């Protein structure tokens, strides 16, 4: 199955390159710096060929090489104890990390960004973001079981926001729904800092038996290399099109899209086809094709294996026969995989391909030369040490320094500011404030988005939006399952990056524990501005330091993730936005705790204490203020709270639990009431006296390490004893009231659930139809 090549290119062979050292090469147009090009020449001992230049340029890009962040990211691997490694089956560096779930089960998950493409072409950008992360999960040998999507858009009333929002949500739905993967949660934030740089992150999680774990490496001399799935086209080549100068003729299709175009049906078939390959143990190594396409797959497979690889590039099946070698190497066409197959398994491999009607072509084989050799009709156009392409890219120690403006920002507290004038205190004002909060862009119901996603497919979704975490059953016999939550707060991180990143972790950790799951592992997507700006570089360095310290303290390792830099318009970067995903384990998903109460008369407890922490809060954001210091981080308290929530869930002591985060207690009370349309009567006088705060602060402060729970009467004594024994502050603040249809808070005018629901749910439809 080879493609007939009708076009003849003026091929820049290795031999030719050696003879023509002075040929001008378009390295600058491909994004390489002078020192990087010089390094390539040094590594090769000659000038690179056009094809080699294409490979190095994409593999040494920021996106693929992490050259600006690598020195800092090391901390995720260094700040790890033996205890934290205990359940880590595969760590950072593979397509995705793998964590042991017990009973022979393993889980793999990862979060990635697809930010820039989603701004240029929101539908395809977001769709292929899902596609890419799902292929990472398949590459590990896992069956993908769920996706999540943290989204950050510009101002809700900006005309361009609707374009990005409609496209991204439709793209995630259009692709994810067609794959048969339930969408179990995510985030939605509107802030003008994301106007020209929306953040579209995607998370996928997959499960497998231990013995099914697959790694991306090409081992065993004589084993065959195969490319399968969609054909290779001109999409996603981007700036690389300068290599069109390799061609003799200029009749090529013009204006190739820099954004890849997704085909979810091809991906769905690819998933099933790969799982069948794994089941039959028909592949030795496997790698998905994402950024940098064949360049990445060949160099990574070869350098992670024990030898080299030889590949004939004209064997690649093409959608567009006019593609040049360089373009074929760089194409980011979606829905493709590369695998290494032993000669004995070729027939069985082909039978699986034929069953699923998936196209494939044999490209070459594994060698023991330690070289990656790529030929074009037999002529050598690439001859490199694959490690130099995949792993030995440039690493930069970018200068960073605490911004000069940081002090003045931190000195500008909300309390007492102009924006704080007229702080609500009368019962009518407080009722209006609660309603305004839950109708605000960041706190309103996300149902407009989530009802466009299939949350049922697979039949294993035990919890999804709007609960604190998404919960998926893994083992139908035992009920073993996983919980996942993603969180980030760009405002907190802008005010204090070290703390902000820790707060993101703390919230995701709390969300997972609130669902009743034991937090086990972390994946992070670090969305920042330009690393060439020392201010931004400081934010990044501080965020990584903060996050790695906090992971160590909470005892959960980072197993993978992604860095997205250059998210800025002109010289204005986005708020630093480290999106943190935490994965937890539930021995039996039947014990998961939903966020809403249902049973009349159950006691409502607030766990944790409340301080006056309004800086960076949703309330201050609603008043147009951003300054001061974010809420304090207390990881020991987070851990203690987590243990209480997990035990309470396991022992049936709570029927509902909801974490307190953005919007504070006010938001949590409304959300827990609206979840099942069951209200509550709340009195906060005792809390105000104990913590020394007024009613407004009690409702709107965003102090961390807090949660509300509803406790059955029969469990109250046991629950209180547990909190007391653990020395954790707990206070009965009210009771579930099923009959009233309202949320009553002493000192606040009555809030009918119907009115709250209307306010909560009307916002997105108002702006997006």
């Amino acid at each position, binding site marked *: 199955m080879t493609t007939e090549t009708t076009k003849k290119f003026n091929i820049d062979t290795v031999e030719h390159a050696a003879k023509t050292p002075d040929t001008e090469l378009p390295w600058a147009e491909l994004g390489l710096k002078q020192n990087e090009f010089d390094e390539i020449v040094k590594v090769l001992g000659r000038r690179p060929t056009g094809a080699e230049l294409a490979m190095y340029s994409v593999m040494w890009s920021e996106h693929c090489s992490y050259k600006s962040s690598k020195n800092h990211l090391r901390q995720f691997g260094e700040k790890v104890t033996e205890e934290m490694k205990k359940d880590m089956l595969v760590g950072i560096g593979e397509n995705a990390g793998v964590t042991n779930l017990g009973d022979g089960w393993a889980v793999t998950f990862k979060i990635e960004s697809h930010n820039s493409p989603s701004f240029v072409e929101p539908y395809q950008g977001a769709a292929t973001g899902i596609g890419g992360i799902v292929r990472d999960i398949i590459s590990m040998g896992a069956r993908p079981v769920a996706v999540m999507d943290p989204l950050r858009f510009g101002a809700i009333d900006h005309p361009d926001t609707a374009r990005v929002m409609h496209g991204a949500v439709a793209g995630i739905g259009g692709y994810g729904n067609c794959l048969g993967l339930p969408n179990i949660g995510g985030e939605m934030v509107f802030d003008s800092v994301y106007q020209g740089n929306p953040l579209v992150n995607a998370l996928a999680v997959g499960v497998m038996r231990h013995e099914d774990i697959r790694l991306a490496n090409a081992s065993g001399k004589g084993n065959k290399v195969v490319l399968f799935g969609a054909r290779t086209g001109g999409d996603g080549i981007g700036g690389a099109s300068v290599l069109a100068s390799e061609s003799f003729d200029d009749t090529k299709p013009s204006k190739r899209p820099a954004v890849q175009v997704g085909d979810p049906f091809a991906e769905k078939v690819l998933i099933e086809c790969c799982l069948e390959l794994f089941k039959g143990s028909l592949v030795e190594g496997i790698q998905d094709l994402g950024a940098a396409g064949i360049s990445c797959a060949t160099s990574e497979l070869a350098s992670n294996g024990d030898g080299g690889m030889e590949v004939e590039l004209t064997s690649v099946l093409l959608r567009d026969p006019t593609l040049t070698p360089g373009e074929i190497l760089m194409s980011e066409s979606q829905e493709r995989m590369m695998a290494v197959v032993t000669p004995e398994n070729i027939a069985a491999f082909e039978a699986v391909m034929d069953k699923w009607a998936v196209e494939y072509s044999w490209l070459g084989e594994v060698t023991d030369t330690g070289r990656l050799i790529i030929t074009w009709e037999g002529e050598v156009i690439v001859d490199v040490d694959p490690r130099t392409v995949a792993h030995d890219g440039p690493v930069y120690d970018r200068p960073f320094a605490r911004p000069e403006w940081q002090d003045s920002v931190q000195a500008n507290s909300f309390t007492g500011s102009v924006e704080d004038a007229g702080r609500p205190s009368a019962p009518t004002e407080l009722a209006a404030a609660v309603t305004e909060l839950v109708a605000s862009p960041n706190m309103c119901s996300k149902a407009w988005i989530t009802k466009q996603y*299939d949350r049922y*497919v697979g039949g294993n979704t*035990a919890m999804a939006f709007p609960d604190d975490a998404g919960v998926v059953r893994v083992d139908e016999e035992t009920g073993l399952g996983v919980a996942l939550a993603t969180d980030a707060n760009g405002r907190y991180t802008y005010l204090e990056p070290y703390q902000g990143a820790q707060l993101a972790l703390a919230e995701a950790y709390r969300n997972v524990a609130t669902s009743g799951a034991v937090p086990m592992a972390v994946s992070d997507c670090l969305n920042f501005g330009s690393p060439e700006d020392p201010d931004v570089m400081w934010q990044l360095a501080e965020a990584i330091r903060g996050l790695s310290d906090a992971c160590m303290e909470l005892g959960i390792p980072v197993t993978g993730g992604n860095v997205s830099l250059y998210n800025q318009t002109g010289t204005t970067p986005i708020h630093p936005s480290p999106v943190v995903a935490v994965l937890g384990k539930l021995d039996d998903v039947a014990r998961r705790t939903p966020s809403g109460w249902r049973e009349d008369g159950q006691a409502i407890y607030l766990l944790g204490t409340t301080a006056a922490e309004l800086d960076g809060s949703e309330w201050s954001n609603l008043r147009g203020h951003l300054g001061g210091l974010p809420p304090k981080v207390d990881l020991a308290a987070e851990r203690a709270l987590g243990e209480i929530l997990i035990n309470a869930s396991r022992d049936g002591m709570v029927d509902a639990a909801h974490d307190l985060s953005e919007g504070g207690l006010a938001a949590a009370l409304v959300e827990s009431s609206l979840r099942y349309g069951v209200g509550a009567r709340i009195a906060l006088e005792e809390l105000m006296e104990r913590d020394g705060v007024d009613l407004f602060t009690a409702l709107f402060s965003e102090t961390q390490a807090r949660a509300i729970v509803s406790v059955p009467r029969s469990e109250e004594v046991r629950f209180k004893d547990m909190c007391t024994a653990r020395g954790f502050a707990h206070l009965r603040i009210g009771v579930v009231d099923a009959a009233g249809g309202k949320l009553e808070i002493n000192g606040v005018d009555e809030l009918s659930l119907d009115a709250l629901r209307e306010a909560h749910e009307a916002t997105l439809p108002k702006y997006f139809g």
Partner: protein
Amino acid sequence: MTSIPLIGEAVAVAAEPRLAGAKIGVVTFPGTLDDRDAARAVRLAGGTAVSLWHADNELGDVDAVIIPGGFSYGDYLRAGAISRFAPLMSKIIDAANSEARLPVLGICNGFQILTESHLLPGSMIKNDHLKFICRDQTLRVENANTAWTVDYTDGQEIIVPLKNQDGQYIADEKTLDALEAEGRVVFRYVGFNPNGSRRDIAGISNAAGNVVGLMPHPEHAVETGFGPESLDGAPRDTDGLGFFTSVLTKIVGGDK
């Protein structure tokens, strides 16, 4: 403690060894998504699920067939338009029309395949609001005498998930009148028509009542805790199980 059941608890199906012998085939096309869910529903109802592959030429000894939901062939042409020509489909069409009247259930994409196959009249077009929609949907059982509904009662309201992009049922007025007159409207949307379907039709049957198609997904409402939301503590998440117990009851020939 509360009366809210733990999810994953055994559903209310009496263990009936006689049902286990009944084999229900579940067809997989390229792009089918809910095949494992349909098989699980059959198992939870007490029957035995058998995987069927679209390219096969034999139906085997199955007693009924479910064509599950998904996006076969990506719905790139017209939902169900390509799958309709699968070799197995011609066997299913023959068996459904034969004397034996093989019971066939088409769910979502399966319903679309059944209309494309002309086993059922009418067609589905894009939802009137043009978006994918996923929601817990109330349905009224209008005909509890088909192969797939005998365990329900006429007029019973059930809640099952709905999730689709092309769910708007259309047919000409004459066909619609005939369906109504012959009692072949099996399910109707209640409270909210989620896609603009004519006369709120959610599902229909053929004249003999052995072939039923509907857009909502009963196979996602068969297990406590994994189905539609149970409000006020009243479990409603196994409302879809009746589809599968109905056909098993019919196959083994027992009384209702």
